[in-house]
């Protein structure tokens, strides 16, 4: 608000001047006359005082304890370290993360993929924004890997884009309007984890397609764990509840026979394991 420049009915003038006849309303207005633009009544003491109400002559400094807790920012976090295992059945209706034909592969567009994502407990959060206008800085960490096998390159290499099969994708979602239940897919907030194994079903890739440091006999490659330390700065519109979090997806597409044995489909990830993960927010009043 502002310093009281004057009252609605200036004392000493008009009905409040000498010989005037002030009414009850005139007095009441000077006590309480809230306006958005200027201070014209003693109503400004209702939380609307600002720096112009300070004594001007002295060098005055505010202390941190003058500021109400949560007046400028608020924050929170969730996280978890227990392993989370996602099995192929969850995504069994998703055949591939890339489109067909196999040659000249492209990643599926988000619109075709969004229905398959599964949320990750420990990396999803709901939070309350107390400010009408604010920005939130979201930050997260996640480590994950999958047990798919590395696919040999498609030849000829320059013609095919060689999008790697058996990839587990991690995707960030968030809301930017108060109390919305529809999360937005963050177009730049996604990462992929390549498969962690060379095939061990009797059809190992040809020797020339086995690459160090895996070597000929090493089937598991520890390098194929992926970590993601992401961030997103979001403008929030209105006080209320918001949410943000990570979800994951991979192509199940395995075939299960009557005896329960499982054989790989076009893409073959049986399991993706999510390790440590967290989601944090800091809201700044605008």
């Amino acid at each position: 608000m502002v310093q009281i420049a004057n009252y609605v009915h200036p004392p000493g003038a008009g009905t409040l001047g000498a010989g005037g006849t002030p009414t009850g309303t005139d007095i009441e207005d000077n006590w309480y006359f809230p306006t958005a633009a200027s201070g014209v009544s003693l109503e400004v003491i209702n939380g609307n005082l600002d720096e112009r109400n300070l004594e001007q002559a002295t060098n005055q400094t505010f202390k941190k304890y003058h500021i109400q807790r949560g007046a400028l920012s608020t924050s929170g976090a969730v996280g978890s370290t227990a392993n989370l295992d996602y099995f192929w059945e969850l995504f069994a209706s998703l055949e591939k993360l890339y489109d067909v034909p196999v040659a000249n592969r492209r990643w599926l567009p988000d619109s075709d993929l969004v229905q398959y994502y599964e949320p990750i407990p420990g990396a999803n959060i709901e939070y309350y924004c107390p400010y009408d206008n604010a920005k939130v800085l979201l930050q997260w960490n996640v480590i994950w890997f999958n047990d798919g096998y590395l696919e040999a390159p498609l030849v000829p290499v320059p013609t095919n884009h060689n999008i790697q099969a058996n990839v587990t994708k991690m995707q960030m979602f968030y809301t930017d309007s108060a109390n919305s239940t529809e999360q937005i897919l963050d177009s730049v907030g996604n990462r992929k984890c390549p498969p962690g194994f060379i095939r061990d079903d009797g059809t190992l890739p040809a020797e020339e397609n086995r690459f160090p440091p895996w070597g000929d006999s090493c089937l598991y490659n520890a390098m194929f764990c992926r970590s993601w330390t992401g961030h997103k700065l979001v403008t929030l519109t209105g006080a209320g509840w918001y949410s943000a979090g990570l979800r994951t997806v991979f192509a199940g597409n395995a075939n299960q026979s009557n005896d329960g044995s499982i054989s790989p489909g076009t893409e073959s990830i049986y399991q993706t394991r999510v390790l440590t993960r967290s989601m944090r927010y800091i809201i700044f009043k605008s």
Partner: protein
Amino acid sequence: MPKMIYDFFDEEDPFTASNLKQRFDAAQDAINDLEVASALAKGCLNDGHLPSFLSFSATTEFELANKSSSLPEVCGYGVTSDEGTAPGDFINGDSYYYNQLNTAIGFNPIGQQEAMPDDGVWEPVVESGVAPFTPLEVRFPPTDLNDFVNPVLIVLMNVHVERVAFDWVGQNWPQGNAMTETEWFMANGVAFAIQMRDADNLTWHHVYDRNGNTPAPARRLRRTERRIGVQTLDKNNPPADQASTSIVPSYRDVAIRCAITANDLQGAYDSNGVQYNIDRIDRVRGVLSLIACTGSDGTATPVETTVYCAISNANLSVLMPRCKMRSG
């Protein structure tokens, strides 16, 4: 601060202009002349009284950060190392980082970059599309970080490295006593960093670690630098050209978190390795440098390499908080 002195009207006091004015003026004077020490209670200032804790904040992001192709899997950037003995002779590439060939003792891949000014060329991360390419850059009003109000800039950058591949120029895989395969991988790759712009001279500068080594010329460490090694591990089938892809995807996240302070402005360096003081900065951007290391065929004959990379999902955020730097 004057106390608010309010004389209650006695029963017989008239509501005259002067009597009313006296009481209204007393209230107005008191409210317009507050003193922090005596008038403000603990926790009295709420979000309605205070400006934002951030005097500036903004973000830039794009999905594809690949200069020559809209496909993230295609390695768009490419640079070839210099087979000459003089680092800094960029013969063919956008940028490269170091060239560690010591002809006196044969090939000497110690994996260390050259000192300034031969420490490589950096270029901005840019969005795919039609030129001019949008850089991964945030602009803000020229700011002196010695200013009490804005003494620090918080910068966050993320980039997704889809592929990093390399190839030999006109050679097969080096044999004999040349670098082992692992050493090749350690040497070649791509580095990312944060740069700030001098608002007065419009020059870009790295954020250096002031505790780095200081021989002349300085071998300073870029405090914001992160690096990804090449992932092409198929020695028999390296990528043939920049349109090809490596067999093994990289899929690695690069995350840089950095606080730029007044010390960093005073501890900047120019391209010749000379200390350089910046008064004000007005932009921050993300940059990359491809690391193409000259190799050997086993007989100390230099062999050029070419490095390619493809990146996506880049975002850069800058926050400028109102705060006070704690000294000591």
